[in-house]
Structure formats: structure tokens, C-alpha cells
């Protein structure tokens, strides 16, 4: 036994300092991709974004706005799945025992995950822009047609905001259900479900109009929100994000971890 394993001496006030929040954030970020499953989903997403932007550019022509938006399809589906897997995995594999033994102020863990989802969605949106710009340029050059660079900061911000909302909604669903298959199935089949609901008469149509996050975020993504759009977006955000996130976080905070 060497002294590197010696316990430190008396308890001091520095010992009582909480784990800095940025550390929690880094740990949660790493946990997103450090398992086999997580790294596979992340690489598929990366390849999908690259491939879809390039192929859309080839087929559709050099229009920056369209090319950036192409990445949103992958971001709206697979990024939330990554979030779902990371929160539900904690309870399935019972690593929550370690997570909450090391951070007994449990609310900080879901808080870190929410902030992380936001950062990841923003970074992913910038990444899409970073890929779309050269693809637009190259396609215009090769085809010898003028490129359309038109994209307002407002549009870009709206589209990024949409990605953030969708990723956080996925996380919220995972936290609410704590069951990966159920959360993923609901998330991926939601667009189909809403199109069915829409056909269920006037009531269904109103419900879909106000609650289907994919359609309420589309004015935001397109960058042309009206007052009515904003109200619908707010209602669907409360339904998909605020409520499940609150219920899920409260349960995680109160629950006995076994």
C-alpha cells in the first residue's frame, strides 16, 4: 500500500464545497456518447447530417437555407433519442446509484442535462451551417450556377430554437417515462399519430394544431411567427416540455434509488 491511497486528514470547509456545475455538465456530456449504444447513435447522426446535406445539395441545388434545414430532420429525431437513452439508461442499468451518490443534490443532475441538451442542439445547428456553407459553394461551382446564400439571422435563430425545443422535449419524455423503448416509440411515431388525430374531426384538428410540437415549431423554424403561432408554440411547449420535465424531475428528486 502506498500513501497515494491515504485518506486525507480532517474535514475542512473546502471539503464541503459542492461539485462545480461545469463538472456535472462535462460528466453528463461524456455519458451521452461513452457507451457503445451512445457512440453508435452519435456517429449515425453525424453521417446522416453530412450525407443528407451533400445529397440535398446535389439534387436540389446550391440553396443555403434549404441545405441547413435538411439537417433538422436528423436533429428532430435522433438527437432526442440520444437524450432519451442517456436518462433512461441510468435507471435500467441502475447507474443512478452512482450518479446520485456522487451528487446528492439531485436536482442538479436534470438541470445539467437540460442545459446540456440546449448546448448540444445549438452546437449541432452551427455544425449544420458549417457543413452547408461549403457544400453550397462547391455545388454552385461545379454546376456553374449562382448560389443562393439568403438566410437571415432571424431564420437561423428560429431554426436553432426549434432544434433546442425538440431535443429538450425528447429529454423530457425520457425523464417522464424512464423507459427507453416507450419513450423512443412515442417520439418517433408522434408525427404519424398526430396525422391520425387530425382526421378525428374538428376536436382532433384543434388538438393537433395546438399540441403537435412538429407543426407548432414550423413557423419558428421558418422564421415567420405570428401572434397565434406564438400562442400555439407556448401551449405545445408547456405540454411537451414544462409539464413532463417538472414531473420527471420531481420524481427523480423524491424517489428512493434502488
Amino acid at each position, binding site marked *: *500500500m502506498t500513501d497515494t491511497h*491515504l*485518506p486525507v486528514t480532517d474535514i475542512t470547509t473546502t*471539503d*464541503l464545497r459542492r*461539485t462545480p456545475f461545469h463538472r456535472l455538465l462535462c460528466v453528463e456530456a461524456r455519458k451521452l456518447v461513452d*457507451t457503445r449504444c451512445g457512440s453508435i447513435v452519435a456517429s449515425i447522426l453525424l453521417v446522416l447530417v453530412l450525407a443528407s446535406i451533400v445529397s440535398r445539395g446535389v439534387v436540389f441545388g446550391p440553396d443555403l437555407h434549404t441545405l441547413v434545414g435538411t439537417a433538422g430532420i436528423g436533429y428532430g429525431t435522433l438527437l432526442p433519442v440520444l437524450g432519451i437513452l442517456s436518462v433512461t439508461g441510468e435507471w435500467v442499468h441502475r*447507474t443512478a446509484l452512482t450518479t446520485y451518490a456522487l451528487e446528492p443534490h439531485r436536482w442538479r443532475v436534470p438541470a445539467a442535462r437540460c442545459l446540456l441538451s440546449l448546448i448540444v442542439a445549438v452546437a449541432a445547428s452551427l455544425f449544420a451551417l458549417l457543413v452547408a456553407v461549403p457544400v453550397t459553394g462547391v455545388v454552385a461551382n461545379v454546376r456553374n450556377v449562382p448560389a443562393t446564400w439568403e438566410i437571415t439571422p432571424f431564420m437561423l435563430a428560429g431554426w436553432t430554437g426549434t432544434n433546442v425545443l425538440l431535443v429538450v422535449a425528447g429529454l423530457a419524455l425520457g425523464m417522464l417515462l424512464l423507459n427507453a423503448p416507450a419513450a423512443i416509440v412515442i417520439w418517433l411515431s408522434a408525427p404519424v399519430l398526430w396525422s391520425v388525430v387530425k382526421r378525428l374531426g374538428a376536436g382532433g384538428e384543434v388538438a393537433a394544431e395546438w399540441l403537435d410540437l412538429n407543426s407548432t415549431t414550423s413557423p419558428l423554424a421558418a422564421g415567420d411567427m405570428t401572434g397565434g403561432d406564438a400562442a400555439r408554440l407556448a401551449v405545445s411547449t408547456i405540454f411537451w416540455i414544462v409539464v413532463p420535465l417538472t414531473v420527471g424531475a420531481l420524481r427523480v428528486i423524491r424517489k*428512493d*434509488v434502488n
Partner: protein
Amino acid sequence: MIEFSHVSKVYRNVKALDDVSFTVEAGSITGFVGPNGAGKSTALRILVGLARPTTGTATVLGRPYTELGCPGLQVGTLLDAGAQHPGRTGREVLTLGAMMLGLPKSRVDEILDLVGLSGGESRRAVGGYSLGMRQRLGVGHALLGRPRVLVLDEPANGLDPQGIQWMRGLLRDLADLGSTVLLSTHLLHEVEQVADHIVMIGRGRVLARGTVGELGRGRSLEQTFLELTADADRSAA
């Protein structure tokens, strides 16, 4: 150092712990023994704030665990060696722990060395580990932050004779260096050899506590244990 004071825990209709009180002194190894379902794991989870007692309080280092700030630097815990994501490597599990505690990456190699996991093994997914390897990893994880208190739930479970001997030596060394260890186990012969103090529980109640010598009363610990737990069962029936 560790203090349980009138701790009870009721799950719906099961009384998992019933007015449990005992203390664990600094620099000693205390074996927490009891039959299946006695409430050992429940007590340890309450101690580290993962479960809430119905009544009573548990403290470590003089305060509730949840008030320790960055508790991994004071108290090392291993509650269930099987509770690992199967798709994460052993090295990654330790790396996450080291990051969380703000320790340098070199600490991961030190720990791998200490618990006897080779470089190759540490790069394999935990899903492919044997129970003994998981226990080593779990004990290593508990030791990352050089804690002065160790709380281990059945750390010897699944270890081969060499592994058990290794664990015994490790815990003894740590206690000699001033650490306090509370470990639960079923292995009475083992605990007799490593522990200074014993706390026996059955059906959620403390049945006996004292030094190994006091409880053995010249016989084996096992005989005392079987007698006491049989008594507890009779009085409960």
C-alpha cells in the same frame, strides 16, 4: 464517524428497518451481517442519502451525507457492483468518477493498478466482466477520491479465494491508515477475519453488536449468528 440513530424504514407493508441505532468508530472495520432481506442494503442506501428513512437519522462524519458537498471525496461507496452500464468500459467508469471528483486522469491508472485490473481488461466493456472483476472495479471506484470512510455492500460477493484475500488485505491496510470501513456481507468466516466490530441485524432490527471476540464468545461467529437470527424469526412469527 458513522451513526445510525433510531432509523426505521417502511416500504408499503414491509418494515425493512425497525429502530436501528449503532455507531462505527473511526479507523475500524465494521462488518454488517444479517440474513437475506434483513435490511443491510436498505440501511446503507439510507446512510448515503439514496433512500429516505421513514423516521430517524443517519450521519457520516458528523453530518447527513447529503450535506457533505462533494461526498465522493469523503465517503467511498459501493452499493451494487452489478449496477453498471454494460456498454461502458471499466476505464471509462473510473474516468467519469475521477472527472466528477475533479481528480487528474492519472488517478484512474493508479486505481486500476491497485485493484488489479489490467490495461486490456480496463478497455473492455463492463458487460463482459465477471462478477469478481465488477467488484474490483466497484471497490476501485469507491477509492477514487481517497475517502476516509468506505461504505461497501457485499464487496466480497463473487470473489475467488485469492480475491477475498486481496480484499481483506486492502481493507486492513486502509483501516490501518485511518480509514473507517462499514461493509455488509453474508460471509461470516470472512468477516470474522477482517472486521474489528460486528453489527448483526435480522428482520430490520439490530440483534447484537460488539467486537468479533465478544460476539463469538469462544464459538464461531456463525453459531451465534444462527442462534440470534432463529430467535428473531421465532419472536417475529
